[in-house]
């Protein structure tokens, strides 16, 4: 695991998030998007003493989520199908942008066939929320915070590496159960 320079983090135990009403997908039910993000936020909330609450007011939310295409004004233009899938900013910026050009799927929709370039929304959401909270990229391929993800692949379970990184920033949620984590061989070897 790594951190952004200066190890920025949030100094509140309750963060709000909202979805852009203007920058959204026209082919996906917004309830499905909300459910996927709720599960992703829940994974991080299960580890650290920070809770996440969805609100309607995009402007007031701590974390702002939207689907954008091409150059969308933040200096990090998206590049069409695949390439870069999403990006998020370090604390306490709060912006999480997903490339609207991708073929986003939820609930394992790619398992029954479909597009060869389908990307699992929940996997990418879980990764980008890690950035929102202050984690950088991991060198361990099994980690959620590894920068690369294959199409038609679901990777949503936090590994020991992800959890060790976020625990150092925020401390532990009292309900955290370490035995529920995915452990890579590297993690085990490194204690």
């Amino acid at each position, binding site marked *: 695991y790594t951190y952004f320079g200066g190890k920025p983090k949030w100094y509140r135990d309750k963060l709000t998030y909202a979805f852009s009403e203007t920058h959204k997908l026209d082919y996906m039910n917004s309830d499905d998007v909300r459910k996927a993000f709720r599960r992703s936020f829940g994974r991080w909330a299960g580890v650290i003493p920070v809770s996440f609450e969805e609100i309607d007011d995009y402007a007031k939310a701590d974390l702002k989520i939207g689907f954008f295409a091409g150059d969308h004004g933040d200096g990090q233009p998206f590049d069409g199908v695949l390439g870069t*899938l999403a990006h998020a900013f370090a604390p306490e910026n709060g912006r999480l942008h997903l490339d609207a050009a991708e073929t986003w799927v939820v609930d394992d929709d790619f398992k029954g066939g479909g597009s060869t370039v389908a990307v699992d929304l929940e996997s990418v959401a879980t990764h980008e929320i890690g950035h929102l909270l202050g984690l950088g990229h991991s060198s361990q391929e099994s980690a959620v915070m590894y920068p690369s993800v*294959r199409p038609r692949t679901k990777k949503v379970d936090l590994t020991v590496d992800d959890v060790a990184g976020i625990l150092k920033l925020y401390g532990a949620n009292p309900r955290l159960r370490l035995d529920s984590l995915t452990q890579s061989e590297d993690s085990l070897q*490194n204690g």
Partner: protein
Amino acid sequence: RNIPEASTAKATQTIDVSNATWHNFARLVDVQVGSHVSGVSELKRYLQRFGYVKDDATDLSDVFDGHLEYAISLYQQNLGLPITGRLDTSTVALMSSPRCGVSDAHMINAGVHTTAR
């Protein structure tokens, strides 16, 4: 050394699903230091985009130079690949894979050493 069959298959699959721009990296497999090959400049821009080549670097030519070899080594280290400085199949396949748009510059500044953890 020989590349295991499974790794080769995985790498090929990954390249096949990449977007049009990065797909071109597949033809750079095994390009040697000192070579002048069309497409190397695109690779340098890719590495610059993700923090492995300095933002102010102006020599983004098609020459595979020592700076590029070093940048590839850093990339391999950060992404958990064998550190060779070469454009081997697995490195090119990973570069061709879709990824998060956040730069890896913070990994370089942190001096990532996976074995130390």
